[in-house]
């Protein structure tokens, strides 16, 4: 029975180098692989308002070579060693990670430390990656039906520019980026004291510590990066907007609400409310809209978890000729019901089992553990929160879910984005 099952906590070691780099070691010898992650405390929220897209462009630059690693060498070294790797940029941070056969730990540390200390920022690299980023923007956003909706609704939820603008940025700002801008960005943000390094998997801790000190220890720290303000008023920035999408085959809509930050009691409760509302075939909205009223082709919902004010969304692609406002009415009715009665005992049991299932699954992947530990280390300065997270979620009561749905979702304080198929110009 799940109630008596306890997932054993991870045994973590943590230390900070002289230059401020925070390190977390999570040893697990089950499979001879090791995952590394370096998380830098810079995301789109740190960007200047005339340099949107910079944090993400910079992420691309980080794969273009450093003092001892040739251009695109990072990809090649990792692949030759039998590893996988990637990097991502969000509003909150930029992360770089790789999973390698365990005996290639030194290679991973060498690559990450070399680019942290000596990234090769040249006009040629910048021009080349700028083009790749522009194609990425086209691929994921401009050339996809509904590709823009997440960025559009974020601008409706958040008033503060830091929170509201898109991570991919604008083509104009990307074009205006100079080599000097990129070098400055590197100096300010890509400093050891502005980062965390996490290792998960099969390694000898004493050997790992020695290697980490050797590769990272002599990288100089930098002055603290500029403070930013991500404060938001309670109100969303805009209640309604319509977007004409030339690529959308059907209309769609997205409703968004502003929520308190990740880790707060409120956010946890709303995250679980989302599971009840839209997660899975037994969820309330799936049963009501996809099955009961049979009025939508697709239903979706998700949270946007941030260190500051965050958000939660529900959206749908209605079937042709359906009354779209009636569909939205159904959604708000379900929210109202949840705000009055809260989740049922059956739904609470579902939540408990889903949370346990998620935690067990995460546990088996060194990469997943690495990434979650890095978040807790970077955002909260406390990777041990990883071990407390499951219980923290399991302790959320039906009443807390009800209260927070009532306060944050059952309200006119929300943003509605309507997507309308637009005809191509002749």
């Amino acid at each position, binding site marked *: 029975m799940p109630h008596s099952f306890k997932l054993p906590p991870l045994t973590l070691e943590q230390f900070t180098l002289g230059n401020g780099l925070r390190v977390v070691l999570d040893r697990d010898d089950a499979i001879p692989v090791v995952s590394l992650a370096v998380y830098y405390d810079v995301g789109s929220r740190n960007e200047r308002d005339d340099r949107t897209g910079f944090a993400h462009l910079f992420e691309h630059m980080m794969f273009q070579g450093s003092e001892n690693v040739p251009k695109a060498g990072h990809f090649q070294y990792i692949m030759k060693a039998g590893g*996988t790797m990637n990097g991502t940029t969000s509003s909150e941070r930029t992360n770089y990670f790789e999973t390698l056969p365990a*005996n290639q730990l030194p290679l991973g540390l060498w690559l990450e430390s070399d680019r942290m200390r000596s990234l090769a920022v040249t006009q040629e690299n910048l021009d*080349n*990656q700028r083009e790749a980023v522009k*194609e990425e923007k086209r691929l994921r956003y401009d050339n996809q039906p509904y590709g823009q909706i997440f960025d559009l609704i974020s601008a409706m939820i958040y008033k503060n520019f830091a929170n509201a603008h898109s991570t991919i940025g604008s083509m104009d700002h990307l074009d205006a980026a100079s080599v000097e801008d990129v070098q400055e960005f590197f100096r300010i943000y890509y400093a050891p004291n502005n980062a965390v390094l996490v290792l998960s998997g099969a390694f000898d801790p004493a050997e790992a510590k020695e290697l980490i000190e050797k590769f990272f220890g002599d990288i100089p720290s930098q002055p603290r990066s500029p403070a930013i303000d991500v404060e938001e008023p309670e109100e969303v920035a805009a209640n309604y907007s319509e977007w004409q999408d030339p690529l959308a085959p059907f209309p769609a809509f997205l409703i968004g609400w502003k929520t308190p930050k990740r880790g707060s009691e409120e956010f946890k409760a709303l995250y679980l409310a989302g599971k009840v509302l839209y997660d899975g075939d037994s969820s309330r909205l799936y049963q009501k809209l996809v099955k009961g009223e049979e009025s939508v082709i697709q239903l979706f919902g998700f949270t946007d978890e941030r260190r500051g004010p965050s958000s939660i969304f529900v959206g749908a692609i209605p079937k042709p000729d359906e009354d779209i406002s009636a569909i939205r009415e159904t959604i708000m009715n379900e929210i109202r019901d949840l705000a009055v009665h809260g989740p049922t005992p059956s739904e609470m049991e579902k939540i408990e*089992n889903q949370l346990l*299932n998620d935690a067990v699954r995460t546990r*088996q992947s060194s990469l997943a553990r690495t990434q979650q530990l890095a978040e807790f280390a970077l955002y909260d300065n406390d990777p041990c929160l990883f071990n407390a997270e499951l219980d923290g979620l399991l302790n959320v009561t039906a009443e807390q879910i009800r209260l927070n749905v009532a306060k944050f979702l059952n309200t006119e304080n929300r943003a509605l984005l309507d997507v309308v198929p637009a005809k191509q110009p002749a």
Partner: protein
Amino acid sequence: MNPDFRKQPPAPLAPIPFEILRPFETTLSNGLRVVIFENERLPLVSYRLSFFSGDIDESENEHGLMSAMALLLTEGTENYSSQQLAEKIERLGAGLSAHSSFDFTSISASSLSFYTSAIFEMLSEIVLKPTFPENEIDLYRRNLLENLKFQRSQPPFLAGEQAARLIYGKHPYSHVSLQPKDVEGITREKLRATHRAALIPNNAVMLIVGDVRRDEVIKELEQHLDGWESGEAPKRSFAEVPTRQQRSITVVDRPGSSQSNIVIANSGLDRLSPDFFPALVMNQVLGAGASSRVFMNLREEKGYTYGAYTRMDARSLAGDIEATAEVRNDVTGESISEFFKEFERIRSERVGSDELLDAQNFLTGVFPIRAETQEGLTTLLLNRELYGLPDDYLQTYREKVSAVTAEQVQDAAQKYIRPDEMAIVVVGDAESVVPQINKFAPTVEVFDTDGKLVESK
């Protein structure tokens, strides 16, 4: 601290061996082959019940029945309505789903190990007692019609549809999409007939990976699957994959598209071909990742695209090789040109020993990473079963990769990368794209996004 240690990549530590043990195998009294891989690392179990019947086994004029049958298994059984099934599964924090592919139909499940009995009960329920309620079939058909329209707004689908048609001709691997008339043909009677014919224990394998005890598993399966009747495995006899004589260009016009989706393809090999390992290594060199030739050329050097790759799809009966990239409109012609340069190069120049070793080191090195999670391990074990690979396939995979020579790679390139007959498919703005690319082939066809031919030269 001497910075010289940074000048070269550091030496690796001592390697730690990794082996996947052979699983336990048995056959139930009803003829079902059962494979069990016990692993107590975490209280998690993955289940796959796969049948050797797929979309290709449908009758020639009826498409969509196998996939409909699979998807509707969870929409109503003798003891559970669709909603009750969803609630029961999700209340356990578990997943249960079924789908069909070209060659197989699979039921997948995963759960915490506390719930293994319940999962077996629900598996047997959906396999033995689906009811295909009329209202669910009706909803499925209506949703499918809308989803078919939705598909046509997706450039990768449009490109894939044309490539499949051009490469596979009359072979059933060419069917990647349904027509509205196919949807209308999905009836309860046909679904039940499809179910009876396809979901038979003697043409299937059940794989269970994770925190289970084999004796208990066998006991539960015997009990829950008691009375499951055998049937006849489908006979597979299809038209040949066509032999192409020349290159062709096919454009799907998507006016206003800001990128061109390029797919360049020719037929390849089936999964059991003796050329598999040389072709695998060849494909790794040519386009299988971020340090491959086409990626380094089209993205890292030229900046044409976010990603350019080649993919080898080796199925049960046949296969294909496809090069893909999404590039900005005005470099569509140049991108195709660069692809053909890379095709010529891998055919005419024997790959150097460094590059060969790099490709092999990736494929062998990444092996434990593929098996790290239970789902990853399940996929590896399942593929061995589905394709009838040798018993020791997973235990000898790495040595087979390492044994491939440069000469074999070149032979594989000459056999499976055939620029003179490739199908070039581009989804994009025809007005700006056609003039850039009509030099690459003697014929050009233009289709609209509904799949209708608009123009042919």
